[in-house]
C-alpha cells in the first residue's frame, strides 16, 4: 500500500501550516499500516473538531467528523454497532483531553475496543492558540500572555492508570517510535491510547520564540525523558518536561469480548 493508496492525492496539499507536526504523524500512521499490511476498508476513523481532527478527511477510509469533544462517544457507538470494524479516533488534545475528557476517562475505564491517537500540540490550534490542559508551565499562549500558571495534565499517565490495555507518549521528534507504538496498538484489543506531542509553529511556536519548527522539535527532543528514568508519576509537571515511553501494555479483556461472552450481540 503506497502513501497515496491511503491518502487522497487529490486533496493534497493539506491545510496544515508549514512545519505542523500533524503531517508527520500521518506519515507514521501510514507506515505502520503498511508494515502490518492493514486493509483501509476494514478501518473507520473518527475525529472531533480542530486542526488534527481534519486529518481523517484526507484518508481513503470511512470517517466520521463529529462534534467537538465527542469523537470517543461516537466511536464507541460505531464499535458496538459493528464490532468487526476497527475504529480509530484521531484528534487533538483540546478535543480529547479537555472538552472530551470525561469520554476519554470512561472509555479507558471500560477498556473499550478503540485505538486513540491524540496529537498534543499544547494549545487549541484551530481557534487561535488558547491555553489547553496540556500546555506546559511557563509557556505563553493567547490566553496566558504572561506565561501559563497551571500544572499540566498527564493524559497518557491517566489513561494507563484507568486500566487501558495500552498507553504511550512520544513526540514528533521521535517519529520512528511513534510508528512503532502505532504498530503495537493495531493488533491489540481493548483501549489503546497514544499521545503524540507535536509542534504548532503558527500558534504556539510563534508566541514562544520558536517560529522555526526546527526549534520546537529541538525543544521537544531536549525536554524529553524516558519513563524508565523517572517512573510512572515521575514528573507532575513543575517544569517543561515530556515523559516519553510506554505507560501501560496489558492484555485485559476488551469491552466487546466481555459483551460477546455475555451473549449481548446475539440478542439482536
Amino acid at each position, binding site marked *: 500500500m503506497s*502513501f497515496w493508496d491511503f491518502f487522497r492525492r487529490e486533496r*493534497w496539499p*493539506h491545510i496544515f501550516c508549514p*512545519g505542523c507536526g500533524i503531517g*508527520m504523524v500521518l*506519515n507514521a500512521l501510514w507506515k505502520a499500516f503498511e508494515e502490518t499490511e492493514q486493509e483501509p476498508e476494514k478501518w473507520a476513523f473518527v475525529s472531533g473538531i480542530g486542526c488534527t481532527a481534519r486529518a481523517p478527511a484526507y484518508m481513503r477510509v470511512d470517517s466520521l467528523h463529529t462534534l467537538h469533544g465527542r469523537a470517543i462517544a461516537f466511536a464507541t457507538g460505531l464499535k458496538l454497532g459493528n464490532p468487526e470494524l476497527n475504529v480509530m479516533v484521531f484528534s487533538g488534545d483540546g478535543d480529547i483531553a479537555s472538552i472530551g475528557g470525561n469520554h476519554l476517562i470512561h472509555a479507558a475505564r471500560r477498556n473499550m475496543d478503540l485505538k486513540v491517537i491524540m496529537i498534543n500540540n499544547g494549545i487549541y490550534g484551530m481557534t487561535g492558540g488558547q491555553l489547553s490542559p496540556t500546555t506546559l508551565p511557563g509557556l505563553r499562549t493567547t490566553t496566558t500572555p504572561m506565561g501559563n500558571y497551571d500544572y499540566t495534565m498527564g493524559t497518557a499517565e491517566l489513561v494507563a492508570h484507568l486500566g487501558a490495555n495500552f498507553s504511550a507518549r512520544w513526540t514528533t521528534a521521535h*517519529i520512528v517510535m511513534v510508528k512503532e507504538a502505532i504498530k503495537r496498538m493495531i493488533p491489540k484489543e481493548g483501549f489503546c491510547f497514544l499521545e503524540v506531542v507535536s509542534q504548532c509553529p503558527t500558534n504556539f511556536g510563534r508566541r514562544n520564540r520558536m517560529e522555526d*519548527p*526546527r526549534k520546537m522539535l529541538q525543544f521537544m527532543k531536549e525536554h524529553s525523558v524516558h519513563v524508565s528514568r523517572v517512573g510512572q508519576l515521575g514528573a507532575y509537571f513543575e517544569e517543561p518536561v515530556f515523559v516519553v515511553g510506554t505507560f501501560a501494555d496489558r492484555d485485559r479483556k476488551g469491552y466487546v469480548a466481555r459483551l460477546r461472552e455475555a451473549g449481548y450481540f446475539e440478542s439482536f
Partner: protein
Amino acid sequence: MHPVIDESLCKRCMICVWVCPKGVFEGEFLSLLGSPLPEVARPSDCINWGRSDTPCELCMLSCPEHAIEYVPEGGS
C-alpha cells in the same frame, strides 16, 4: 537510494534539514510566510546510497507534506 523533494508539495519548513543525521539537505528558514526551497545537497552522503532498500526513512517520515521520496541513484 536517495531522497528527492517534490517542489510542488514542499512548504519550506526545513524539518528535513534538521532531521537528517548525515546532513544531506541544505536550506535556510526565513519565516513561516516563505523560505527558499531546501535542496538535496549531498545525496551520496545518504545512508541509503548504494542500496536498493531504505533502512533510514527519517526524512520521509518527518516531512509533514510527504514531499520526500526515495529514488535510485541518479534519479529525480
